[in-house]
């Protein structure tokens, strides 16, 4: 095989993207657990973990620019680099959104006593977590079929988001929410919004993977 050094650089790049994906995934796992167990220590860990994600973002961008400048990649290799360059922005935002959720958690007084479905909230957490995990897998495995499922899964998350926000707002409107919990309701709505945005970033990753593998640009949202 020729261009051994170049092939190794491409492999290193992809490994780092997966590493960044795994780091973002850890943040998602930790914040999910923190929300369920009201664990503020874990929430603080999510905030500090964001530094690792940001460092990888800069490293990977630098690797991409170096490959573009020095190796003149073409075809499939060029699409891998272009995809990686776009994808790290989404992963970095996923990390930021997880951090935002942690920060909201830390200012809340828990528990909140309102009649809104905890099951629906748990379902949203599970679905978002699963989409992020799958988005990283689609990149690692080039799985376009899995990437093509992201639109309908995101639609389900969007429905849950709208329903939950509506239900929480109704508790304020109809007076069933105690006045001292209104601030926390706002925080929960922000959290749900960040979760919905995390899912959107996973969909973006899916689009980029389809382009990487097939060379066609698809907009799944």
């Amino acid at each position, binding site marked *: *095989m*020729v*261009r051994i050094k*170049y*092939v190794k650089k491409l492999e290193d790049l992809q490994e780092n993207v997966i590493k960044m994906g795994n780091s973002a995934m850890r943040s998602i796992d930790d914040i999910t657990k923190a929300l369920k167990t009201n664990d503020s220590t874990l929430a603080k860990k999510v905030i500090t973990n964001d530094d690792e994600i940001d460092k990888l973002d800069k490293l990977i961008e630098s690797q991409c620019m170096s490959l573009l400048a020095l190796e*003149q*990649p*073409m*075809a*499939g*290799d*060029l*699409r891998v680099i272009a995809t990686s360059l776009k994808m790290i922005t989404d992963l970095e935002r996923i990390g930021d959104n997880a951090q935002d959720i942690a920060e909201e958690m830390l200012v809340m007084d828990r528990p909140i006593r309102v009649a809104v479905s905890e099951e629906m909230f748990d379902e949203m957490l599970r679905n978002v977590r699963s989409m992020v995990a799958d988005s990283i897998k689609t990149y690692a495995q080039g799985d376009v079929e899995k990437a093509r499922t992201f639109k309908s899964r995101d639609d389900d998350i969007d429905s849950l988001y709208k329903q939950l926000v509506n239900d929480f707002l109704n508790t304020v409107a109809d007076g069933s929410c105690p006045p001292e919990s209104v601030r926390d309701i706002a925080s929960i709505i922000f959290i749900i919004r960040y979760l919905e945005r995390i899912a959107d970033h996973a969909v973006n990753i899916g689009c980029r993977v389809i382009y990487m593998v*097939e*060379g*066609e640009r698809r907009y799944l949202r």
Partner: protein
Amino acid sequence: MDKKIKISVKDLNLYFGSFQALKHITMDIPEHEVTALIGPSGCGKSTFVKTLNRMNDLVDGVKITGEVNYNGINLLDRNTDVVALRKEIGMVFQKPNPFPKSIYDNIAYGPRVHGIHDKKRLDEIVERSLKHAALWDEVSDRLHESALRLSGGQQQRLCIARLLAVGPDVLLMDEPCSALDPIATAKIEDLIWELKQEYTIIIVTHNMQQAARVSQSTAFFLLGEMIEFSPTVDLFERPKDSRTEDYVTGKFG
């Protein structure tokens, strides 16, 4: 919108003795565009280009079948006036080959051969051709100096000007920048970009980045076959054939 086709090649086969150098080539070359031909050494791209102006006729034992249709006629027909053809479809080679004459006489040579002897007219042709080849400003004050005193890049632009002086329609360029430094190469590439507005250009190049920079369509040749012919951006971003992918990513062999 459909492109206007300048040269239409149909099932072109070429043999040097028993060796088949070109195999079933079919492609339509668009007008007023730069078409690049890429591929490894010995793949047939220079042989293909030389077929378009019947330069291969000069090789003993060559046999060519198929059609090369240009302006409604098949160039391969035995009745084709190859001198007139080479005026219409001119060629620039890898190594600049100025005649051992003055700059002026290099450019005026072709028009004189075609019967133009009026000095005023020749002066106009020389100036126009040198301007067209982006060389006039550098040589206008020394037209009667030897062309051999020019730099490599200037000599190549002189060869292009010499070609333009006879009023061609199609320009064939066989690795025109291989012998040139990066700055001279950049000047030729800029010139190619300008010239395509008036001419149809076919360029053979080993330099894929050059093909990517200057051309609108690119054909990949391999072992005498044309494997893929696409808009340049598509061929280099998402080639259809795995052999093209292997070549453009440099993982060939």
